[in-house]
Structure formats: structure tokens, C-alpha cells
């Protein structure tokens, strides 16, 4: 059970039940759809970027607790961050959930997102945690097709 508690931490359960920034942004500069065909998770991500800074970010969609809470926590975390930092955080987050070695600085920089470290014990669920982040990169790269984790 301890691995499960590690995976489904309170903050993850909370963000699953009450996802933050869960809305469409009428005014947005970037937008992308994400889809995990394996489990049917779908999300739509909106960003308002100005002067290289994420001014606003929001999402809608449906998915499992890991994918929903990951999207929710990501939007909270990235608001106000520069695009350059954002791409670096993507790399760090990817390392975190896939179980790569990380230095303390990179881990500290992820702040609250460190709750997703438990995902590394569940290889089948890595895609759930990273769906919102892949969608983010697609939105920033302005890739029009749905981001797919498969």
C-alpha cells in the first residue's frame, strides 16, 4: 500500500477532485489538444503568452486522477514563468516521472510537482502524468494535431 499512497498523495487527490484553472481561455495565444488513446484521456490546453511570459494558462478535459491532477498542478506552477524556464521544467518533470537521476536543484525547482515522483514506480502510468506536459510543448510549438502519448 505504501507505493499506492506515494502515487495517490493527498495533493493529487485534491487536484483530481477540484482541478484548478479548469476552464477554456477565450483569449489565448496558444492552444493544443492532447489525447492518450490507451486510456481515453483527453485534454485541451490554452495559454496566453506575452513578452515570453505565460500570463495565463488553463485546461479542460477528462481523465484519470493522475492525468487530471498533473494538468491542474502544471497550470498553477507555470503561470508567470518564462517560456525558456517552462521548457526546462518540462525536461525536469519528464526526468522526475521516468525515474532518471536528478540533481537537488532541478528537484527543488519543480516545487509541488515533486509529488509525481511516485509515478516512476508505475511505468504504465507515466503517460498519464506527462500528457498535459506533452500537450503544452505541442501548444508552444503550435503543432495543430492532438498530442499523442502513443
Amino acid at each position, binding site marked *: 500500500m505504501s*507505493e*499506492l499512497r506515494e502515487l495517490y498523495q493527498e495533493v493529487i487527490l485534491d487536484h483530481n477532485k477540484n482541478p484548478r484553472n479548469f476552464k477554456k481561455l477565450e483569449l489565448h495565444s496558444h492552444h493544443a489538444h492532447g489525447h492518450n488513446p490507451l486510456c481515453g484521456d483527453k485534454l485541451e490546453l490554452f495559454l496566453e503568452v506575452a513578452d515570453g511570459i505565460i500570463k495565463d494558462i488553463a485546461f479542460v478535459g477528462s*481523465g484519470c*486522477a493522475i492525468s487530471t491532477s498533473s494538468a491542474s498542478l502544471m497550470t498553477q506552477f507555470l503561470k508567470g514563468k518564462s517560456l525558456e524556464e517552462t521548457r526546462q521544467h518540462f525536461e525536469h518533470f519528464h526526468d522526475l516521472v521516468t525515474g532518471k537521476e536528478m540533481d537537488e536543484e532541478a528537484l527543488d525547482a519543480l516545487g509541488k510537482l515533486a509529488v509525481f515522483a511516485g509515478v516512476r514506480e508505475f511505468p504504465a502510468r507515466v503517460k498519464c502524468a506527462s500528457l498535459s506536459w506533452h500537450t503544452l510543448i505541442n501548444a508552444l510549438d503550435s503543432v495543430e494535431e492532438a498530442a499523442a502519448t502513443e
Partner: protein
Amino acid sequence: MFDINRIRSDFPILGTKVYGKSLVYADNAASTQKPSQVIDSIKDLYSNHYANIHRGVHHLSQKSTALYEGARGTVKDFINASKVEEIVFVRGTTEGVNLVASSYLEPRLDPGDEILISEMEHHSNIIPWQLTAERTGAKLKIIPLLENGELDISKLPDLLTPQVKLVAVTHMSNSLGTLNDISPIIERAHNMGIPVLVDGAQSIAHMPIDVQALDCDFFVFSGHKIYGPTGIGVLYAKEDHLLSMKPYQGGGDMIMNVSFEKTEYNDIPYKFEAGTPNIEGTIGMAAALDYVSGLGIEVIDSYEQELLVYATERFSEIEGLQIIGTAPRKGSIISFVLDGIHPHDVGTIMDMEGVAVRTGHHCTQPVMDYYNIPATTRVSLSFYNTMGEIDEIAKAISKVKELMG
């Protein structure tokens, strides 16, 4: 007498521990585990009898050929086909459906013709027809679902038009468990001269199959869903159909005479078995069918119905759990959703309790769309499951609710 302990001891994998807990394997609709009798048959083949089949004049080739062709006889008897020539070995249900779509149906289709399938089909009984329809200008028509997971047969008279060139329908739904009463469908189609393919991927392991009594034109199933190896399956087709069909693939063993100008094809069923076949799979599948026959498929059926009744009762007691698929006649499959908890989370937590279930759309996205859900959690039971295991599954579901609050 159904000796569950003896039966379980035939399946070495059932003794596995998962995260320190005894495995409860409830993903049998995806694939079944293998008894020692099947595992040993493959070991015996490679240890004592193996060589390439047909053509060889040497001793081992003849032994191998006898086992391979013996397996065809075992399949014929198991589904009560009238002749061994009607049994074509394929890779599985999927290849069987594709073979019929390419070799039987496609040459007979004109633009505007129709193929009738149902809303509960597995993707493997949708996409081959879709591809054929795209190539010929034909179109798919769908027998709709009812809320309880049965097919709305009342729509059949409207759907069965003279344009329909084939009906393809599942015998048992892999995501809902529904057992379809296919005899009236076959009878009605035959009254209009329309052939019927039955997808037996799920039904084969759970109930007696008699293709002559059903009078279906085609019946397909996979070895691995009836305790046999993967990569082997069966297409049963009435002899007249096979005789009228063009080859599926070209290659060795499917020919009588070859020159660069013209090739004369081999007799059925060899005409449809190009290349060196899956010899070990075929022999392993025959061992599996013998195993099932040894237990008695009627005995299996009645025990699994007891499991289904008990599991349905136990799961129905769980607050917030809704069973998807409540047809009056079902095989031992229980799909469900839990209020506010995504099936993927359910699957991970149950796995940590040692319970193997499937979560997702089960390759039946139209069924998920019908119920407006992204996925379900599916418990699919076999004769080696026990009442005690159903209690363990129910406990694991309670654990999910506890953890996810």
C-alpha cells in the same frame, strides 16, 4: 464433480504472487492462462516430433504432419464442423475476419452494397469491413444497442435489405458480456440469401459451439482465449464458400502446380494456409481444446454462470458501482464504472492488491460512446476462478474507494 483445486493446479501461473499477494487473474476475456497440458504439448513437440510439415518424406516430418492435421480434426470435432476441409488455421480471430473480408466478401461487393454489423462489435469485427467498404464503395450498417447491453433485434427487418451482402456479429460481447441469440439473426439473413459470420472470440471458451446447428457461414476464434497459445486461431467456413473463395495470401503449401505463366492452387483448406504455418500453436491449441473437452464445456458453462451470478451480486452491493451491460443472458464478464473514479486509477490500485483486471475501452469504442463513458473496469472470469477470489476482487474495489475517497 468440479474439483477446483485440482483444476487450479493444472495452471502453474495461478500460483504467482503479485506484490506479495496471491494473484487473482480476472482478465480472461483478454487472454486466458495455459494449463500444463498445453505447455507440455509444445515441449513434447519440440523434444520429440518437430520438423516442417507436409511435403517432407522423412520420419519427423511425417510425425509433425500427423500432429498438425490431427489438430485440425480436434478443432472440427470441438465445433462440430462436418468436414476437416472446413477448418482453416489462421493467426487469430482478427486474421480470420480479414480473410473473409478480402477473399470472400470484397470480390462480391459493388458500390452501394451494405455490410451489416452491430454496435457491440470488437474493433476487429469493424475495421476489416470498413476497409473493404472503403475499397469497394459499399457501406456499413449497424444493429443498435439497447440500454441493458442487448442488440435491438426489432430493427433487423429494416436493416436486412437486399443490398446487404454479409452479416458479421459477435456471439458474446467482450466489453458487456452479452450473449447474443444469433440463431434468429442467421435464420432471417438466410431467408434472404445473406451469409453470416459469427465472431466467436469470446463465446468459444464459455459455451458449447455447434456450427452445424447454428448454420453460420463463417465462425472465427483465437486459440489464446481458450487456454491455448497466442498467434493461432481458426476460421471455420462452409465448404461451398471456401471453394468459391480466392486465395488470401500466396506462398508455399497453398499451390498444386506453379509456373511463371500460371499457378494452380491447392485444395481447401491448404489454399488458405500459405507458408510454413504455426505448427506449435496449432498443436498447443488442440491440447487446449482437449483439456476443455476433458472438463466438459457444459460443466464449465454452468460453473462460470454461478461465478457470474455471485460476482454480480457482490459488486452490486458496492455503493457507487454501476454495472455496464445487464443483459439477461451473459457470459462471465462484469464491466463496471465507479462514481467519480477513473477506471485507470481503479486498475492500478486493484493491481496492487494482486487483482488483474482490464481497464479501458476494450477495443469497443462505439460501446463506450453509446454509454457516454471513456472506459470501464472489466472483470472477466474463467472456470479456474473461485468464489473466494470474487470476494478478494470486491475487497480490492472497496480499497479503491477508500483510497480515492
